[in-house]
């Protein structure tokens, strides 16, 4: 994907040094934060950059003839260009700013869906999907009389390409899959999924929430049709997200929400709409959010996504090794390729009880169904304990997690 000759050599991640850039660590001494999969902490560059933007350059965008508005517009559109480059998209007009991945997916389901999906058509999702990449498709299918089908993971936790292929047919119009599972950390073979789906004429939407902050993503190399992610899981602010779509697809889609900023002409009888991306950005957008997203993506690029992946891969391996030595602990399988997310259960102890005990040992993890109830049902469990990683985590954090889990076992075995 990346040209080896031109790619910059990247220094290894030094999490201890990086923590100095994350004020949350200064204000919460001893914090062992293992919930970046839900939302990552924010570096000072993002926090201060947003404040600075409000102080110096803020006005509404795409409206004013005055210079301040132009500066604000330039900053907003610079964020779009940074996002384009980050995804290696062909055109900045393919980048639609949304409130988050949830809104990005709902946009496609509600705009593309009724326009291009008919009764009897099918949509395929994986059984690993977050509710945000499941419920919008379920609602769409109910609305137009289409059928939602679920591609299974195999017993090892990996995506079952053969079973997926067997589900595809000429009726399949959309395939919606996650890039990296938020429950198991499994990396899905998106390139292969795209090949198989495209061979049947289906489009592919990828939920990239977990992939964006920790591995290189090149939408043209992936070959997918839509790619969605949230800013807040990528060290950026909450309230901003991205939908990337191939331009000809976006151009053929009707507006979703309507209002100001997305029209070319409005009369009593009819309205003409702008071209993408503005067609899908009704109302005043989260301008500072976009600026914050740019700063977050710059932060990730400064560290280097290969370096981040290497760091988190190493830590994931170390955590698996530490946790699998704990008796009665069962890791949820993730197939051959897992990144930065570890879900587990302890025999006889409910995940919520584990979460409470871990918290009192200073270890912040997520417990519950992780917005993936179909997967929980398949695994026959109510929930899991989930540790997820960020650039600021190190082996000491994994040791603290393991020690807190051991303390939990002791507490409940008395």
């Amino acid at each position, binding site marked *: 994907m990346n040209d080896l000759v031109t790619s910059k050599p990247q220094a290894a991640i030094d999490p201890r040094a990086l923590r100095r850039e994350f004020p949350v660590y200064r204000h919460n001494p001893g914090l062992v934060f293992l919930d970046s999969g839900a939302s990552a902490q924010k570096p000072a560059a993002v926090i201060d950059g947003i404040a600075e933007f409000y102080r110096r350059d803020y006005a509404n965008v795409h409206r004013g003839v005055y210079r301040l508005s132009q500066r604000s517009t330039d900053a907003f559109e610079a964020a779009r260009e940074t996002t384009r480059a980050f995804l290696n998209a062909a055109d900045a007009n393919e980048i639609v700013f949304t409130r988050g991945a949830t809104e990005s997916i709902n946009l496609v389901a509600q705009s593309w869906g009724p326009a291009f999906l008919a009764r009897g058509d099918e949509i395929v999702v994986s059984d690993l999907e977050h509710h945000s990449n499941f419920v919008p498709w379920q609602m769409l299918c109910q609305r137009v009389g289409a059928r939602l089908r679920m591609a299974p993971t195999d017993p090892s936790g990996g995506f079952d390409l053969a079973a997926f292929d067997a589900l595809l047919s000429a009726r399949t119009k959309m395939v919606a899959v996650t890039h990296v599972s938020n429950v198991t950390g499994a990396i899905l073979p998106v390139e292969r999924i795209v090949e198989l789906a495209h061979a049947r004429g289906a489009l592919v939407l990828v939920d990239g929430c977990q992939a964006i902050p920790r591995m290189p993503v090149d939408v043209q190399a992936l070959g997918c049709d839509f790619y969605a992610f949230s800013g807040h899981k990528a060290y950026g602010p909450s309230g901003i997200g991205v939908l990337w779509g191939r331009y000809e697809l976006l151009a053929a889609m009707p507006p979703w929400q309507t209002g100001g900023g997305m029209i070319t002409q409005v009369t009593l009888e009819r309205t003409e709409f702008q071209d993408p991306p503005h067609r899908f950005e009704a109302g005043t957008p989260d301008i500072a959010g976009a600026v914050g997203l740019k700063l977050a993506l710059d932060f990730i690029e400064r560290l280097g996504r290969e370096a981040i992946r290497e760091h988190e891969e190493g830590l994931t391996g170390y955590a698996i090794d530490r946790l699998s030595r704990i008796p009665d602990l069962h890791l949820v399988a993730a197939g051959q390729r897992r990144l930065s997310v570890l879900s587990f259960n302890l025999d*006889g*102890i*409910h*995940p*919520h*009880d584990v979460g*409470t*005990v871990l918290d*009192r*040992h*200073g270890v912040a993890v997520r*417990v*519950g*169904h992780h917005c993936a*109830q179909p997967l*929980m049902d398949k695994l026959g469990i*109510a*929930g899991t304990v989930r540790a997820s990683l960020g650039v600021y985590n190190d082996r000491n954090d994994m040791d603290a997690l393991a020690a807190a889990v051991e*303390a939990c076992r002791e*507490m*409940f075995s*008395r």
Partner: protein
Amino acid sequence: MTMDLRELYQDIILDHGRHPRNFRAIAHPTHTAKGHNPLCGDRVTVYLTIEGDRIADVSFEGRGCAISTAAASLMTEVLKGKTLAEAQALFAQFHARVTGGEPGALPGTLAEDGERLEPLTGVKAYPARVKCATLPWHAFEAALKGGAAVPVKTE
């Protein structure tokens, strides 16, 4: 650091969490309702046999964390044989104690039952866990009201 955890997970909680009492269905209950905590997926079904204004039998089934299982188990223990008015008084007092409200005094005849529930009040220091302790009580109350087809949700 673990001292306050011991306050929450007292021996009696762990005991009732592992070996819940009255953990069974009643074949022909006069009242029943389901409770569901969507946050953690905990589910409980409460069964009642009410004769006149007295709770002749009460039981529960479901799956949940140590707190919610122990809360349901202890609830069934204290409710059995009580009048509906006594049951309401116990719930009102318990609810106030775990949510940090003003618990009114219980009538002398119920003081012992109030003490039976005391170990659960440790949850008030854990706002995210209060719902675990109140879920079975909400299901109980829903059962009295006629047990809606939809499970009662916490708060």
